[in-house]
């Protein structure tokens, strides 16, 4: 087996991973960094983020206000120490991006412009038109190219973490081009593999968002935190699930039902005004707005379409100039995927799974429970997002905590334990055998990968959609167990090595089944309604029992074990979430 060794290894080449790599290269240029990604870094899903990144910029704004918006937005499930650190650091991080060349949209005087965003009381969202994630990712990637200490393993798929004597020692990866299985050793590993939206059938997430890093950590014994907290974005295109950015509402777009009525006023989100009011109506938080759209579906006040119910997002009153300058991608996406021009017609939208608040449990330093293993970005749960992330907090989070995880890893490796080389390589050899026996050489299986994947995602929508209840959650839990069994009998038609994407689809499906199981069981155990987790059988928030993070631990056989960890409350005691009044 081919082996190589580095000081710090990063899995995932999106925003968090690249930010971490740059931090290490700048702080400790003598350290060797490995960046392992199953796609070329500029293909990572950060590229699809649209609206912007929040960071206090104006004189009329303050760090405390950003903290409060984030805490109340999280329905008090976010850890307040992590939120304070985030709000303090994020403006500096956004400035780094500016100095590295990110084309932030500007005011006429040449200063960086900010726009309103949902659930935010002040204008503080930096943006690069409506391609913010694209520009951030390319800026980070291009900036990273100047550092010789970063070795990239492009299109290498991580299949397992190597852990010896309780400490991380590297990974095993499948090199897609050759099909070779490699051991890549490192004293510390940072997981920055993004989210797992593909466990749901209708998602804004890219095909690559299969929860790989979450599953790798979980399989190695690290717990996943708050996995029931899956965010539905209010505005996705009905067939494709493509995201129409919240910036469309921030710029003044209206949500309208089939009667031409701005229905959010019926959901305790304020009264309609011609121009947007912060923390009100269309600028409410995503959980509440998605729930309101679902409410319209149930009341029969939505339009009926071939892909189910939908409502309208109307931008026509903004005019062509504003749409073209502030929302060019929205227009481009509508023209290409819906054959309509938002300058002239309202956009058909429905809520769509978008983001995981939950992820690999870390502390404020980005450390997991496994020595030497760190996580950052959507793959991680630190947690600043709690039960509902505010739009434009994720792009900032991946910078702040990508950099912080990197600094923690640098410190850790100064005294990281050495493990026996033969023990590490023997683990890697075990993994190679597993991949060959269970996948590459496997014959006689009868279950099609696509069928298991479809059944998984549909049961996830039924059980873990916008509203949940015990009965359907139990059904989903049973279904996922059944699929775990059937997964052992998958059919592999391709037994060759070169760029075997059937093999990677199978590995991704294995990861997704594990992640899906943690989502279902975390949702089943949380008997309250909070943020994105709405239980019909437990409609109230219950701070006496659930002001706590759920932690899903792998058990050797059977479903995960769930326990709880108290939320960190510092300055903002639990209160009512108030929007529009």
């Amino acid at each position, binding site marked *: 087996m081919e082996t190589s060794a580095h000081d710090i290894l990063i899995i995932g080449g999106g925003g968090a991973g690249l930010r971490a790599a740059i931090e290490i290269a700048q702080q400790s240029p003598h350290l060797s960094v490995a960046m392992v990604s199953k796609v*070329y870094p500029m293909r990572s899903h950060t590229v699809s983020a649209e609206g912007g990144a929040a960071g206090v910029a104006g004189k009329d704004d303050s760090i405390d206000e950003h903290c409060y918006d984030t805490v109340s937005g999280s329905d008090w499930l976010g850890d307040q120490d992590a939120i304070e650190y985030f709000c303090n650091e994020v403006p500096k991080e956004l400035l780094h991006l500016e100095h590295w060349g990110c084309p932030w949209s500007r005011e006429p005087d040449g200063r960086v412009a900010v726009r309103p965003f949902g659930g935010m009381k002040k204008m503080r969202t930096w943006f690069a038109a409506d391609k913010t994630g694209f520009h951030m990712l*390319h800026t980070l990637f291009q900036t990273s*190219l100047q550092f010789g200490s970063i070795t990239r393993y*492009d299109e290498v798929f991580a299949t397992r973490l190597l852990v010896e004597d309780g400490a991380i020692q590297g990974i095993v990866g499948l090199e897609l081009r050759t099909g070779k299985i490699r051991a890549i050793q490192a004293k510390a590993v940072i997981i920055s593999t993004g989210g797992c939206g593909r466990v749901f059938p209708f998602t804004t997430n890219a*095909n690559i968002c299969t929860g790989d890093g979450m599953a790798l950590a979980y399989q190695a014994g690290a717990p996943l935190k708050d996995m029931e907290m899956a965010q539905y974005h209010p505005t996705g295109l009905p067939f494709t699930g493509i995201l129409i950015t919240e910036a469309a509402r921030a710029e003044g777009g209206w949500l309208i039902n089939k009667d031409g009525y701005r229905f959010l006023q019926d959901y305790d989100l304020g009264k309609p005004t011609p121009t947007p009011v912060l923390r009100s109506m269309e600028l409410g938080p995503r959980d509440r707005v998605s729930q309101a759209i679902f409410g319209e579906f149930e009341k029969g006040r939505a339009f009926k379409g071939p892909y189910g119910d939908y409502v309208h997002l109307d931008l026509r009153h903004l005019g062509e100039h504003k749409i073209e300058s502030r929302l060019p991608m929205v227009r481009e996406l509508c023209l290409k995927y819906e054959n309509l021009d938002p300058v002239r017609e309202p956009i058909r939208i429905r809520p769509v799974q978008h983001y995981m608040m939950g992820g690999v449990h870390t502390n404020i330093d980005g450390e997991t429970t496994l020595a030497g293993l760190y996580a950052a970005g959507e793959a991680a749960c630190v947690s600043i997002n709690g039960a509902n992330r505010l739009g434009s907090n994720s792009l900032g989070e991946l910078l702040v905590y990508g950099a912080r995880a990197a600094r923690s890893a640098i410190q850790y490796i100064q005294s990281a334990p050495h493990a026996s080389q033969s023990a590490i390589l023997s683990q890697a050899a075990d993994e190679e055998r597993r991949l060959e026996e269970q996948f590459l050489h496997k014959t006689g299986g009868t279950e099609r990968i696509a069928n298991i994947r479809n059944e998984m995602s549909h049961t996830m929508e039924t059980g873990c959609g916008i509203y949940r209840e015990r009965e359907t959650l139990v059904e989903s839990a049973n279904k996922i167990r059944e699929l775990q069994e059937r997964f052992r009998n998958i059919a592999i038609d391709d037994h060759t090595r070169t760029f075997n994407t059937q093999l990677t689809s199978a590995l991704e499906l294995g990861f997704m089944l594990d992640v899906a199981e943690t989502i279902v069981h975390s949702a089943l155990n949380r008997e309250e309604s909070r943020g994105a987790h709405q239980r019909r059988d437990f409609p109230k928030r219950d701070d006496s029992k659930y002001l706590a993070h759920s932690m899903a631990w792998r058990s050797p056989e059977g479903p995960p074990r769930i326990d709880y960890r108290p939320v960190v409350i510092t300055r903002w005691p639990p209160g009512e979430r108030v929007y529009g009044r």
Partner: protein
Amino acid sequence: MADTIILEVERFHPESDTEPSYQSFEVPLRDDWMVLDALNHIKDQLDGSLAFRWSCRMGICGSCGMMINGVPMLTCETQLINFAPGPLRVGPLAHFPVIKDLVVEMDDFMAKLQKVKPWIVRKDDFQPEREFIQKPAQMETYHQFSLCINCTLCYAACPVSGLDSNFIGPAAIALAHRYNLDSRDQGIEDRLDIVSQHEGIWDCTVVGECSTVCPKGVDPSLAIQQYKLTATKEWFKSFLLPRGKN
């Protein structure tokens, strides 16, 4: 209208084939499907061994460029119905070595990207405490060149790239130009040394195919012409002034 369409997909497997061949697949002809949806139907239901790259399915990650009836396009934003009644041919991007089926080697392109120093270069080490002031008009000068998604359709369309793989190519030159035009950057001379070499801008014969196929409205051809002008000016300047002291 027929309810199916034939896709003739180029297949090549280096472990068993000496040259590529075409395989026909009949897929549903749905008016809401892109060519990518048809490929995924093949992979999921008909032949799991077919290899191709894709990810975002919204025209921004740049993974899924292929030749469709001989023209480089992003399969995720190209409607299947446009090719009815078919058949349509799907092949790997031209001018790149093929790894397997529709997957091409990106090494050379990635090396070229890095070669043009696509990052902010500061000669004076100046770091403002706040942001660099950049007025909208200043941003406008480079903005379109910052929209490149690295899909490499322009390399598949460029006749010079086809003949001479040393040619640094449209996307990389546009990216160099993007940083040169950025008011925050001071690296133009470093990049001129790279881009004005023989295999840089001078190879381009101004066919403009790169700009025609760009799915993001970037105009690499314009970048190359502007770059030639700058390089010529710098070349004259180098006779009048010692290099690097202007």
